[in-house]
């Protein structure tokens, strides 16, 4: 089976700065891969290139064996990718249930009916509520999203990434700014993802990264500096230098 994600020779320049510099790696089906690196390493830029927020300067990106280098963000998502944003990007005036209903229809660009009710049928609503239960915000399912706490909105963000039954989920620092309790809840949800779902996650917190990852890809100054199992990366001299300083 072909790789879920294939990045080859990928470079993104902002003026003279190469934020992502000749990056090549692959993610196989079912892998739980975490992109780790200090602030400014280029992780989030790489994430944006993969999800299609902006185009690459050079290089090639393939999702599920299809070249998506010039494809728009929405079309990439319709291939079966669920994603989160680093800063929560949810629908503030709608309820969490409506948020999830929208997320469930996005994968096939659905919801075109002018006459069928936007409340969805019984089974769809049940599925939406079950997902909110899973991410831990079931009790707020029918309140206005704008009134949710920061942590609850992060959890909803995760629900939106999972709602469309994606084949792969791309998460951008899903634990950023969460309390320890909320953080462990999010980590639990991620760890409980079925084997069939491929995970690519950007993280700069070492603890979260080592907890979730079965494979770690470490970046620094736009380049990949290490790639391997958490144990191997932990023992890697270059990684230690980047994270702990040359001392």
């Amino acid at each position, binding site marked *: 089976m072909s790789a879920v994600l294939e990045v080859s020779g990928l470079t993104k320049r902002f003026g003279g700065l190469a934020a992502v510099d000749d990056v090549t790696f692959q993610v196989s089906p079912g892998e739980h891969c975490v992109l780790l690196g200090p602030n400014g390493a280029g992780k989030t830029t790489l994430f944006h290139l993969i999800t299609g927020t902006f185009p690459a300067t050079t290089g090639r990106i393939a999702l599920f064996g299809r070249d998506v280098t010039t494809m728009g963000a929405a079309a990439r998502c319709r291939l079966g990718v669920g994603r989160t944003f680093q800063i929560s*990007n949810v629908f503030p*005036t709608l309820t969490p249930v409506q948020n999830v209903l929208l997320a469930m229809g996005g994968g096939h660009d659905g919801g075109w009916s002018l006459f069928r009710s*936007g409340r969805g049928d019984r089974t769809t609503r049940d599925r939406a509520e079950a997902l909110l239960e899973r991410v831990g915000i079931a009790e707020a399912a029918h309140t206005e999203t704008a009134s949710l706490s920061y942590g609850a909105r992060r959890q909803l963000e995760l629900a939106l990434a999972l709602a469309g039954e994606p084949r792969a989920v791309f998460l951008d620092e899903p634990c950023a700014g969460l309390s320890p309790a909320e953080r462990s809840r999010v980590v639990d949800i991620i760890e409980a993802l079925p084997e069939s779902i491929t995970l690519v996650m950007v993280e700069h917190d070492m603890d979260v990264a080592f907890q979730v990852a079965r494979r770690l890809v470490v970046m620094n100054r736009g380049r990949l500096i290490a790639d391997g199992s958490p144990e191997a990366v932990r023992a890697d001299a270059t990684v230690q230098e980047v994270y702990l300083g040359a001392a």
Partner: protein
Amino acid sequence: MGRLILLAAIALALATVPMLGNPFWVGLTMQVLVFGLLAVSVDFMIRQVGLFPLCNGAFFAVAAYTVAMLETGGWPTVAAVPAAIAAAALMGMAFGISVRTGGVYFILITLAFGQMALSVATSWTALTGGDNGITNIPYPAVAGVGPTDLSQMFFVVLALVGLMVLVYARIITSQFGLTLNGIRDAETRMVALGYRTVTRKYVAFVISSVFAGVAGVLYAYTNQFVSPAAASLLVSVEAGLMAILGGSGTVIGPFLGATVIMGIRNIVSAMVPGWPILMGLVFIAVVLFLPRGLVGLTGRIKRARP
């Protein structure tokens, strides 16, 4: 369900207006209904999609002119009305390219489209009668049956506006309506979920043009006269003001806004010479103190009670 009862009650109350026996009130209420429907078409874009159009007056005018030309040219109503609505929809499809922009750029590009339509109305005199407009538009008639006086016409308008309101209420609570609200709230998220957001905004824009077109059709029949005034920027702006005054994205809001503006223009203007100033003051007060419009006021009153 409660809302349906409320709408039915309002429709019943309005149905008593012709019994007052004063054609002034009948005419004014008809105007409120017609311009309220135009305001609904603008409100749809503002509150459901998050875009402020300044060209709905053009859809309104093209439909009104089409009815005027066809009816005075001897076409039957059953042909003139669909042709007029189709004309508005076609114009909506053409102007719909505006949705590729957003914010201020959307306002400006729709303003430019609207002004183009106005200049066609004033300068293509062979077709539109120029500044003289088109007069003597007959009342609508289907197979020889139709309203013969003002109060009968009033009931036709009330029934058709009521029908459009029901259709509108259905659309904004539909699956499609929900996706529009998603675009309004967070378009980048909708894109990241896989939605073709520009296509959806385009469809919404065309729906808006159809509602404006229906309002234009009713305007031509009730006014029995169409001139470039129907295509002026003021029509688009006032429809936007009605939508904002009424507020809250409800079905009733735009009609409340239309009541206030039409009321000031037709009643207060007779008593006070500087009535546009009063209109401006009302508008400023609502925007500053009632950001959710007049409909939002009821929520405030409810909350103020212990």
